[in-house]
Protein backbone atom coordinates (compact mmCIF):
# COMPACT_ATOMS: atom_id res chain seq x y z
CA UNK A 1 0.00 0.00 0.00
CA UNK A 2 1.17 3.48 -0.80
CA UNK A 3 1.20 5.98 2.01
CA UNK A 4 2.35 9.39 1.08
CA UNK A 5 -0.32 11.71 2.26
CA UNK A 6 1.57 13.29 5.13
CA UNK A 7 4.74 14.50 3.51
CA UNK A 8 4.17 13.94 -0.16
CA UNK A 9 6.69 15.66 -2.46
CA UNK A 10 9.07 16.08 0.48
CA UNK A 11 11.69 14.08 -1.41
CA UNK A 12 11.82 16.45 -4.37
CA UNK A 13 15.11 18.20 -4.91
CA UNK A 14 15.08 21.96 -4.72
CA UNK A 15 16.72 24.87 -2.98
CA UNK A 16 13.83 25.01 -0.49
CA UNK A 17 13.94 21.27 0.21
CA UNK A 18 17.61 21.47 1.08
CA UNK A 19 17.22 24.15 3.74
CA UNK A 20 17.61 23.19 7.37
CA UNK A 21 14.21 22.27 8.85
CA UNK A 22 14.80 24.75 11.65
CA UNK A 23 15.08 27.61 9.17
CA UNK A 24 11.82 26.56 7.61
CA UNK A 25 10.00 26.15 10.91
CA UNK A 26 11.13 29.57 12.14
CA UNK A 27 10.27 31.39 8.90
CA UNK A 28 6.90 29.63 8.67
CA UNK A 29 5.93 30.66 12.16
CA UNK A 30 7.18 34.22 11.59
CA UNK A 31 5.06 34.31 8.47
CA UNK A 32 1.93 33.13 10.29
CA UNK A 33 2.52 35.60 13.10
CA UNK A 34 2.89 38.56 10.74
CA UNK A 35 -0.14 37.52 8.69
CA UNK A 36 -2.31 37.20 11.76
CA UNK A 37 -1.21 40.60 13.07
CA UNK A 38 -1.91 42.45 9.79
CA UNK A 39 -5.01 44.68 9.99
CA UNK A 40 -7.88 43.22 7.93
CA UNK A 41 -8.32 46.31 5.75
CA UNK A 42 -4.84 46.04 4.17
CA UNK A 43 -5.75 43.79 1.32
CA UNK A 44 -2.62 44.83 -0.64
CA UNK A 45 -0.53 43.30 2.12
CA UNK A 46 -2.41 40.02 1.84
CA UNK A 47 -1.86 40.01 -1.91
CA UNK A 48 1.86 40.49 -1.29
CA UNK A 49 1.94 37.69 1.29
CA UNK A 50 0.33 35.45 -1.24
CA UNK A 51 2.87 36.49 -3.87
CA UNK A 52 5.67 35.67 -1.45
CA UNK A 53 4.26 32.19 -0.84
CA UNK A 54 3.58 31.64 -4.52
CA UNK A 55 7.19 32.37 -5.36
CA UNK A 56 8.27 29.86 -2.71
CA UNK A 57 5.98 27.25 -4.20
CA UNK A 58 7.47 27.87 -7.65
CA UNK A 59 11.01 27.73 -6.25
CA UNK A 60 10.31 24.45 -4.49
CA UNK A 61 8.92 22.83 -7.68
CA UNK A 62 5.74 21.73 -5.91
CA UNK A 63 2.79 21.26 -8.28
CA UNK A 64 0.73 24.44 -7.64
CA UNK A 65 -2.56 22.66 -8.22
CA UNK A 66 -1.73 20.10 -5.55
CA UNK A 67 -0.92 22.81 -3.01
CA UNK A 68 -4.12 24.66 -3.88
CA UNK A 69 -6.25 21.55 -3.57
CA UNK A 70 -4.80 20.64 -0.22
CA UNK A 71 -5.24 24.14 1.12
CA UNK A 72 -8.97 24.00 0.43
CA UNK A 73 -9.33 21.35 3.11
CA UNK A 74 -9.28 24.11 5.71
CA UNK A 75 -12.24 26.01 4.22
CA UNK A 76 -15.12 23.96 5.71
CA UNK A 77 -13.60 24.17 9.18
CA UNK A 78 -13.13 27.93 8.99
CA UNK A 79 -16.60 28.44 7.56
CA UNK A 80 -18.15 26.36 10.30
CA UNK A 81 -16.59 28.56 12.93
CA UNK A 82 -16.83 31.94 11.25
CA UNK A 83 -19.99 31.81 9.15
CA UNK A 84 -22.18 33.27 11.88
CA UNK A 85 -20.01 36.29 12.58
CA UNK A 86 -21.64 38.58 9.95
CA UNK A 87 -25.03 37.97 11.53
CA UNK A 88 -24.15 38.73 15.10
CA UNK A 89 -21.67 41.56 14.72
CA UNK A 90 -23.26 44.98 15.46
CA UNK A 91 -22.52 47.75 12.93
CA UNK A 92 -23.66 49.22 9.64
CA UNK A 93 -26.26 46.90 8.14
CA UNK A 94 -25.76 45.51 4.65
CA UNK A 95 -29.00 43.68 4.40
CA UNK A 96 -31.73 42.28 6.52
CA UNK A 97 -33.71 39.16 5.80
CA UNK A 98 -36.73 37.51 7.31
CA UNK A 99 -36.41 33.80 7.73
CA UNK A 100 -39.70 32.53 9.10
CA UNK A 101 -40.06 34.33 12.47
CA UNK A 102 -36.49 35.49 12.55
CA UNK A 103 -35.07 38.78 11.44
CA UNK A 104 -31.49 38.32 10.30
CA UNK A 105 -29.16 41.20 9.62
CA UNK A 106 -25.74 41.19 8.02
CA UNK A 107 -23.27 43.95 8.90
CA UNK A 108 -20.24 45.37 7.10
CA UNK A 109 -17.90 44.89 10.00
CA UNK A 110 -19.15 41.32 10.34
CA UNK A 111 -18.37 40.59 6.69
CA UNK A 112 -14.96 42.19 7.10
CA UNK A 113 -14.14 39.88 9.98
CA UNK A 114 -15.35 36.86 8.06
CA UNK A 115 -13.10 37.72 5.09
CA UNK A 116 -10.27 38.42 7.50
CA UNK A 117 -10.60 35.03 9.19
CA UNK A 118 -10.82 33.16 5.91
CA UNK A 119 -7.86 34.90 4.28
CA UNK A 120 -5.61 34.59 7.30
CA UNK A 121 -6.48 30.95 7.86
CA UNK A 122 -5.93 30.17 4.21
CA UNK A 123 -2.54 31.93 4.01
CA UNK A 124 -1.44 30.19 7.21
CA UNK A 125 -2.42 26.75 6.00
CA UNK A 126 -0.76 27.45 2.66
CA UNK A 127 2.52 28.22 4.41
CA UNK A 128 2.21 25.06 6.51
CA UNK A 129 1.61 23.00 3.39
CA UNK A 130 4.75 24.44 1.84
CA UNK A 131 6.63 23.57 5.04
CA UNK A 132 5.33 20.00 5.25
CA UNK A 133 5.73 19.29 1.53
CA UNK A 134 9.32 20.49 1.40
CA UNK A 135 10.50 18.82 4.62
CA UNK A 136 10.56 15.13 5.45
CA UNK A 137 8.52 14.45 8.55
CA UNK A 138 11.48 12.93 10.36
CA UNK A 139 13.57 16.01 9.59
CA UNK A 140 10.76 18.24 10.78
CA UNK A 141 10.67 16.34 14.08
CA UNK A 142 14.42 16.73 14.48
CA UNK A 143 14.09 20.43 13.77
CA UNK A 144 11.32 20.87 16.33
CA UNK A 145 13.34 18.98 18.89
CA UNK A 146 16.40 21.13 18.30
CA UNK A 147 14.19 24.20 18.66
CA UNK A 148 13.45 23.02 22.22
CA UNK A 149 9.93 21.80 21.65
CA UNK A 150 9.05 19.59 24.66
CA UNK A 151 10.35 16.09 24.03
CA UNK A 152 7.07 14.47 24.98
CA UNK A 153 5.35 16.39 22.20
CA UNK A 154 8.01 15.45 19.67
CA UNK A 155 7.66 11.83 20.71
CA UNK A 156 3.88 11.88 20.41
CA UNK A 157 4.18 13.37 16.91
CA UNK A 158 6.79 10.80 16.00
CA UNK A 159 4.61 7.89 17.13
CA UNK A 160 1.67 9.40 15.33
CA UNK A 161 3.63 9.55 12.11
CA UNK A 162 4.91 6.00 12.54
CA UNK A 163 1.66 4.31 13.55
CA UNK A 164 -0.99 6.23 11.65
CA UNK A 165 -0.12 4.09 8.61
CA UNK A 166 -0.26 0.87 10.62
CA UNK A 167 -3.66 1.91 11.99
CA UNK A 168 -5.00 2.88 8.58
CA UNK A 169 -3.92 -0.50 7.21
CA UNK A 170 -5.66 -2.20 10.13
CA UNK A 171 -8.88 -0.27 9.52
CA UNK A 172 -8.79 -1.16 5.83
CA UNK A 173 -8.32 -4.85 6.66
CA UNK A 174 -11.20 -4.79 9.12
CA UNK A 175 -13.41 -3.05 6.59
CA UNK A 176 -12.54 -5.64 3.94
CA UNK A 177 -13.28 -8.49 6.33
CA UNK A 178 -16.59 -6.89 7.19
CA UNK A 179 -17.61 -6.28 3.61
CA UNK A 180 -16.62 -9.80 2.54
CA UNK A 181 -19.28 -11.08 4.89
CA UNK A 182 -22.00 -9.06 3.14
CA UNK A 183 -22.26 -6.21 5.56
CA UNK A 184 -25.78 -4.85 5.44
CA UNK A 185 -29.00 -5.13 7.32
CA UNK A 186 -30.74 -2.60 9.51
CA UNK A 187 -29.20 0.75 10.25
CA UNK A 188 -29.05 0.09 13.99
CA UNK A 189 -27.19 -3.15 13.33
CA UNK A 190 -24.73 -1.34 11.05
CA UNK A 191 -24.09 1.31 13.66
CA UNK A 192 -23.52 -1.35 16.28
CA UNK A 193 -21.04 -3.15 14.05
CA UNK A 194 -19.12 0.06 13.39
CA UNK A 195 -19.09 0.74 17.12
CA UNK A 196 -17.60 -2.69 17.75
CA UNK A 197 -14.96 -2.08 15.11
CA UNK A 198 -13.93 1.20 16.72
CA UNK A 199 -13.72 -0.54 20.08
CA UNK A 200 -11.62 -3.37 18.65
CA UNK A 201 -9.32 -0.87 17.00
CA UNK A 202 -8.84 0.91 20.31
CA UNK A 203 -8.04 -2.31 22.16
CA UNK A 204 -5.60 -3.41 19.47
CA UNK A 205 -3.85 -0.04 19.56
CA UNK A 206 -3.67 -0.19 23.34
CA UNK A 207 -2.09 -3.63 23.24
CA UNK A 208 0.28 -2.55 20.51
CA UNK A 209 1.26 0.37 22.71
CA UNK A 210 2.26 -2.07 25.42
CA UNK A 211 4.31 -4.18 23.00
CA UNK A 212 6.03 -1.12 21.55
CA UNK A 213 6.89 0.02 25.05
CA UNK A 214 8.31 -3.45 25.69
CA UNK A 215 10.46 -3.16 22.57
CA UNK A 216 11.71 0.23 23.74
CA UNK A 217 12.50 -0.99 27.23
CA UNK A 218 14.30 -4.00 25.78
CA UNK A 219 16.69 -1.59 24.09
CA UNK A 220 17.51 0.36 27.21
CA UNK A 221 14.75 2.99 27.21
CA UNK A 222 14.46 4.51 30.67
CA UNK A 223 11.98 7.34 30.10
CA UNK A 224 14.56 9.73 28.74
CA UNK A 225 14.50 10.28 24.98
CA UNK A 226 17.82 10.82 23.33
CA UNK A 227 18.40 11.38 19.65
CA UNK A 228 21.30 12.17 17.38
CA UNK A 229 21.07 15.29 15.35
CA UNK A 230 22.72 15.65 11.99
CA UNK A 231 21.28 19.08 11.31
CA UNK A 232 23.61 21.83 10.17
CA UNK A 233 22.93 25.42 9.24
CA UNK A 234 24.42 26.22 5.85
CA UNK A 235 25.12 29.56 4.26
CA UNK A 236 21.93 29.13 2.21
CA UNK A 237 19.91 29.01 5.43
CA UNK A 238 21.33 32.34 6.49
CA UNK A 239 20.59 34.00 3.13
CA UNK A 240 17.13 32.52 2.86
CA UNK A 241 16.21 33.26 6.47
CA UNK A 242 17.34 36.88 6.30
CA UNK A 243 15.87 37.43 2.85
CA UNK A 244 12.51 35.98 3.79
CA UNK A 245 12.24 37.80 7.10
CA UNK A 246 13.21 41.13 5.48
CA UNK A 247 10.52 40.68 2.80
CA UNK A 248 8.02 39.80 5.49
CA UNK A 249 8.98 42.78 7.63
CA UNK A 250 8.74 45.14 4.66
CA UNK A 251 5.25 43.96 3.76
CA UNK A 252 4.13 44.06 7.36
CA UNK A 253 5.60 47.51 8.06
CA UNK A 254 4.27 49.00 4.83
CA UNK A 255 0.77 48.26 6.06
CA UNK A 256 1.49 50.06 9.30
CA UNK A 257 2.89 53.10 7.49
CA UNK A 258 -0.20 53.31 5.30
CA UNK A 259 -2.51 53.55 8.26
Amino acid sequence: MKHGFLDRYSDLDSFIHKLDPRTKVITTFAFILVVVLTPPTRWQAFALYFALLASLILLSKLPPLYVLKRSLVIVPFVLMIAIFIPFFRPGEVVGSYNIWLWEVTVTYSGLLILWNVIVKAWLSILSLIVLSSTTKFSELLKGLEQLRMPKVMVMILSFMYRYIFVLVAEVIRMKQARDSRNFGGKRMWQLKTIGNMVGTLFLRSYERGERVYGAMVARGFDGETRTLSNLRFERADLYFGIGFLVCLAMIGLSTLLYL
Partner: protein
Amino acid sequence: MDKIIEIENLSYSYPDGKQALSDVNLAIGIGETMALIGPNGAGKSTLLLHLNGILRSDGTVKVFGVPLEDRSLKWVRSKVGLVFQDPDDQLFSPTVFDDVAFGPINMGYSADEVRGRVAQALKWVGMEGYEGRSPHHLSVGEKKRIAIATVLSMSPEILIIDEPTSNLDPRAKWELIELLKRLEMTKIVASHDLELVKALCERTIVLDEGRVIADDSTHRIMSNTPLLQAHGLAPPRINGVQAQGSGQGPLPNG
Protein backbone atom coordinates in the same frame (compact mmCIF):
# COMPACT_ATOMS: atom_id res chain seq x y z
CA MET B 1 31.09 -19.94 33.98
CA ASP B 2 29.99 -21.33 30.67
CA LYS B 3 26.27 -20.80 31.13
CA ILE B 4 24.89 -17.62 29.61
CA ILE B 5 21.34 -17.88 30.94
CA GLU B 6 20.07 -19.90 33.88
CA ILE B 7 16.40 -20.10 34.77
CA GLU B 8 15.34 -21.66 38.05
CA ASN B 9 11.78 -22.44 39.19
CA LEU B 10 10.24 -19.76 37.03
CA SER B 11 6.46 -19.48 37.25
CA TYR B 12 4.26 -16.74 35.89
CA SER B 13 0.55 -16.15 35.71
CA TYR B 14 -1.21 -13.48 33.68
CA PRO B 15 -3.03 -10.69 35.49
CA ASP B 16 -6.28 -12.58 34.88
CA GLY B 17 -4.94 -15.57 36.83
CA LYS B 18 -4.22 -17.88 33.91
CA GLN B 19 -1.01 -19.83 34.46
CA ALA B 20 1.43 -19.06 31.64
CA LEU B 21 4.64 -20.64 32.95
CA SER B 22 4.95 -23.20 35.69
CA ASP B 23 8.23 -24.21 37.24
CA VAL B 24 10.52 -23.73 34.27
CA ASN B 25 14.16 -24.75 34.76
CA LEU B 26 16.59 -24.16 31.95
CA ALA B 27 20.24 -23.43 31.29
CA ILE B 28 21.72 -22.18 28.06
CA GLY B 29 25.44 -22.40 27.34
CA ILE B 30 27.58 -19.82 25.60
CA GLY B 31 27.54 -20.22 21.83
CA GLU B 32 24.52 -22.52 21.77
CA THR B 33 21.73 -22.12 19.27
CA MET B 34 18.54 -23.24 20.90
CA ALA B 35 15.03 -23.54 19.56
CA LEU B 36 11.98 -23.04 21.72
CA ILE B 37 9.04 -24.76 20.08
CA GLY B 38 5.49 -25.29 21.13
CA PRO B 39 1.92 -24.70 19.97
CA ASN B 40 0.16 -21.35 20.06
CA GLY B 41 -0.32 -20.15 23.61
CA ALA B 42 2.35 -22.47 25.04
CA GLY B 43 4.09 -19.60 26.79
CA LYS B 44 7.03 -19.15 24.40
CA SER B 45 6.76 -15.38 24.14
CA THR B 46 6.11 -15.05 27.86
CA LEU B 47 9.28 -16.99 28.61
CA LEU B 48 11.31 -14.80 26.25
CA LEU B 49 10.02 -11.66 27.93
CA HIS B 50 11.47 -12.93 31.20
CA LEU B 51 14.96 -13.28 29.77
CA ASN B 52 15.65 -9.56 29.76
CA GLY B 53 13.41 -8.59 32.63
CA ILE B 54 10.46 -7.08 30.80
CA LEU B 55 8.34 -9.51 32.77
CA ARG B 56 9.48 -10.58 36.22
CA SER B 57 7.94 -13.04 38.60
CA ASP B 58 8.72 -15.89 40.99
CA GLY B 59 11.90 -17.82 40.38
CA THR B 60 15.29 -16.55 39.30
CA VAL B 61 16.76 -15.68 35.95
CA LYS B 62 20.52 -15.27 35.82
CA VAL B 63 22.50 -13.82 32.93
CA PHE B 64 26.22 -14.67 33.09
CA GLY B 65 25.52 -15.68 36.67
CA VAL B 66 24.12 -12.26 37.58
CA PRO B 67 20.56 -12.46 38.89
CA LEU B 68 18.02 -10.20 37.20
CA GLU B 69 17.02 -7.40 39.55
CA ASP B 70 16.57 -3.64 39.34
CA ARG B 71 20.26 -2.93 39.68
CA SER B 72 21.36 -5.26 36.90
CA LEU B 73 18.49 -4.54 34.50
CA LYS B 74 20.29 -2.07 32.26
CA TRP B 75 23.38 -4.21 32.02
CA VAL B 76 21.35 -7.34 31.27
CA ARG B 77 19.44 -5.57 28.51
CA SER B 78 22.69 -4.58 26.84
CA LYS B 79 23.74 -8.26 26.83
CA VAL B 80 20.42 -9.82 25.87
CA GLY B 81 19.00 -8.62 22.56
CA LEU B 82 15.31 -9.37 22.18
CA VAL B 83 13.60 -9.12 18.78
CA PHE B 84 9.81 -9.00 18.92
CA GLN B 85 7.58 -10.98 16.61
CA ASP B 86 5.81 -8.08 14.91
CA PRO B 87 8.38 -5.75 13.33
CA ASP B 88 5.79 -2.98 13.53
CA ASP B 89 6.23 -3.18 17.31
CA GLN B 90 10.00 -3.30 17.10
CA LEU B 91 10.37 -0.42 14.66
CA PHE B 92 8.78 2.63 16.20
CA SER B 93 10.90 5.51 14.90
CA PRO B 94 10.27 7.70 11.88
CA THR B 95 13.39 6.43 10.08
CA VAL B 96 15.43 3.23 9.97
CA PHE B 97 18.50 5.09 11.23
CA ASP B 98 16.70 6.38 14.33
CA ASP B 99 15.47 2.88 15.10
CA VAL B 100 18.81 1.13 14.77
CA ALA B 101 20.47 3.96 16.71
CA PHE B 102 17.91 3.82 19.54
CA GLY B 103 19.64 1.12 21.58
CA PRO B 104 23.21 2.44 21.25
CA ILE B 105 22.08 5.98 22.11
CA ASN B 106 20.33 4.71 25.22
CA MET B 107 23.52 2.91 26.16
CA GLY B 108 25.29 6.25 26.12
CA TYR B 109 27.73 5.85 23.22
CA SER B 110 29.19 8.90 21.49
CA ALA B 111 27.63 10.15 18.27
CA ASP B 112 30.45 8.74 16.13
CA GLU B 113 30.29 5.38 17.84
CA VAL B 114 26.51 5.26 17.33
CA ARG B 115 26.86 6.03 13.63
CA GLY B 116 29.50 3.34 13.27
CA ARG B 117 27.33 0.77 15.03
CA VAL B 118 24.29 1.60 12.92
CA ALA B 119 26.32 1.21 9.72
CA GLN B 120 27.80 -2.08 10.94
CA ALA B 121 24.45 -3.52 12.07
CA LEU B 122 22.78 -2.63 8.78
CA LYS B 123 25.68 -4.21 6.93
CA TRP B 124 25.31 -7.45 8.91
CA VAL B 125 21.68 -7.78 7.86
CA GLY B 126 22.36 -6.67 4.29
CA MET B 127 20.37 -3.46 4.51
CA GLU B 128 23.02 -0.81 3.81
CA GLY B 129 21.64 2.39 2.39
CA TYR B 130 18.26 2.08 4.11
CA GLU B 131 19.10 4.62 6.84
CA GLY B 132 16.75 7.34 5.66
CA ARG B 133 13.79 5.14 4.79
CA SER B 134 10.58 5.07 6.78
CA PRO B 135 9.54 1.66 8.15
CA HIS B 136 6.10 1.87 6.54
CA HIS B 137 7.71 1.87 3.11
CA LEU B 138 9.49 -1.46 3.69
CA SER B 139 8.39 -5.02 2.93
CA VAL B 140 7.84 -7.50 5.76
CA GLY B 141 11.14 -9.23 5.02
CA GLU B 142 13.02 -5.95 5.05
CA LYS B 143 11.32 -4.95 8.29
CA LYS B 144 12.35 -8.24 9.92
CA ARG B 145 15.98 -7.65 8.95
CA ILE B 146 15.94 -4.10 10.24
CA ALA B 147 14.31 -5.33 13.45
CA ILE B 148 17.25 -7.68 13.94
CA ALA B 149 19.66 -4.83 13.16
CA THR B 150 18.08 -2.69 15.90
CA VAL B 151 19.28 -5.29 18.39
CA LEU B 152 22.62 -6.14 16.74
CA SER B 153 23.65 -2.49 16.99
CA MET B 154 23.84 -2.99 20.77
CA SER B 155 26.27 -5.91 20.18
CA PRO B 156 24.44 -8.32 22.47
CA GLU B 157 26.01 -11.55 23.69
CA ILE B 158 22.79 -13.42 23.10
CA LEU B 159 20.16 -12.89 20.44
CA ILE B 160 16.58 -13.87 21.20
CA ILE B 161 14.10 -13.89 18.33
CA ASP B 162 10.38 -14.51 18.55
CA GLU B 163 8.93 -16.15 15.41
CA PRO B 164 11.50 -14.80 12.94
CA THR B 165 9.88 -16.41 9.91
CA SER B 166 6.21 -15.61 10.49
CA ASN B 167 4.56 -13.87 7.53
CA LEU B 168 7.58 -14.43 5.28
CA ASP B 169 7.44 -16.06 1.88
CA PRO B 170 9.80 -19.03 1.41
CA ARG B 171 12.52 -17.03 -0.31
CA ALA B 172 12.58 -14.32 2.35
CA LYS B 173 12.43 -17.03 4.99
CA TRP B 174 15.49 -18.91 3.70
CA GLU B 175 17.40 -15.67 3.26
CA LEU B 176 16.66 -14.87 6.87
CA ILE B 177 17.77 -18.32 8.00
CA GLU B 178 21.08 -17.85 6.16
CA LEU B 179 21.46 -14.48 7.82
CA LEU B 180 20.85 -15.96 11.27
CA LYS B 181 23.36 -18.75 10.58
CA ARG B 182 26.06 -16.18 9.88
CA LEU B 183 25.54 -14.43 13.25
CA GLU B 184 27.91 -16.04 15.70
CA MET B 185 26.52 -15.17 19.11
CA THR B 186 24.33 -17.40 21.29
CA LYS B 187 20.82 -17.59 19.87
CA ILE B 188 17.39 -18.54 21.15
CA VAL B 189 14.68 -18.84 18.52
CA ALA B 190 11.04 -19.28 19.45
CA SER B 191 9.02 -20.67 16.61
CA HIS B 192 6.72 -23.38 15.42
CA ASP B 193 8.36 -23.38 12.01
CA LEU B 194 10.11 -26.76 12.15
CA GLU B 195 12.03 -26.17 8.91
CA LEU B 196 13.67 -23.18 10.50
CA VAL B 197 14.44 -25.13 13.66
CA LYS B 198 16.00 -28.03 11.73
CA ALA B 199 18.12 -25.69 9.62
CA LEU B 200 19.37 -23.50 12.45
CA CYS B 201 19.36 -25.05 15.91
CA GLU B 202 21.34 -27.86 17.55
CA ARG B 203 19.18 -28.05 20.65
CA THR B 204 15.40 -27.90 20.96
CA ILE B 205 13.08 -27.34 23.87
CA VAL B 206 9.41 -28.24 23.66
CA LEU B 207 7.16 -26.02 25.72
CA ASP B 208 3.46 -26.66 26.22
CA GLU B 209 1.03 -25.17 28.72
CA GLY B 210 3.88 -23.33 30.38
CA ARG B 211 5.96 -26.44 31.10
CA VAL B 212 9.16 -27.74 29.58
CA ILE B 213 8.07 -31.04 28.02
CA ALA B 214 11.32 -32.07 26.35
CA ASP B 215 14.88 -30.80 26.12
CA ASP B 216 17.11 -32.63 23.66
CA SER B 217 19.07 -32.38 20.45
CA THR B 218 17.02 -31.07 17.54
CA HIS B 219 17.63 -34.25 15.61
CA ARG B 220 16.19 -36.47 18.32
CA ILE B 221 13.16 -34.26 18.94
CA MET B 222 12.38 -34.00 15.25
CA SER B 223 12.42 -37.77 14.84
CA ASN B 224 10.10 -38.25 17.82
CA THR B 225 6.86 -37.90 15.87
CA PRO B 226 4.50 -38.94 18.72
CA LEU B 227 5.94 -36.16 20.88
CA LEU B 228 5.47 -33.57 18.15
CA GLN B 229 1.94 -34.78 17.49
CA ALA B 230 0.98 -34.68 21.13
CA HIS B 231 1.94 -31.00 21.31
CA GLY B 232 0.45 -29.73 18.10
CA LEU B 233 3.71 -29.51 16.18
CA ALA B 234 3.08 -32.16 13.52
CA PRO B 235 0.03 -33.14 11.48
CA PRO B 236 -2.27 -35.48 13.45
CA ARG B 237 -2.06 -39.22 12.75
CA ILE B 238 -4.23 -40.29 9.86
CA ASN B 239 -6.02 -43.52 10.86
CA GLY B 240 -5.92 -45.49 7.66
CA VAL B 241 -8.83 -43.59 6.18
CA GLN B 242 -8.94 -39.92 5.27
CA ALA B 243 -9.04 -38.02 8.56
CA GLN B 244 -11.84 -35.67 7.65
CA GLY B 245 -13.78 -33.66 10.21
CA SER B 246 -14.41 -36.49 12.64
CA GLY B 247 -17.35 -35.78 14.92
CA GLN B 248 -18.68 -32.98 12.73
CA GLY B 249 -21.67 -33.04 10.47
CA PRO B 250 -21.30 -32.76 6.71
CA LEU B 251 -20.25 -29.35 5.41
CA PRO B 252 -23.00 -27.22 3.91
CA ASN B 253 -23.10 -27.81 0.22
CA GLY B 254 -23.71 -24.71 -1.90
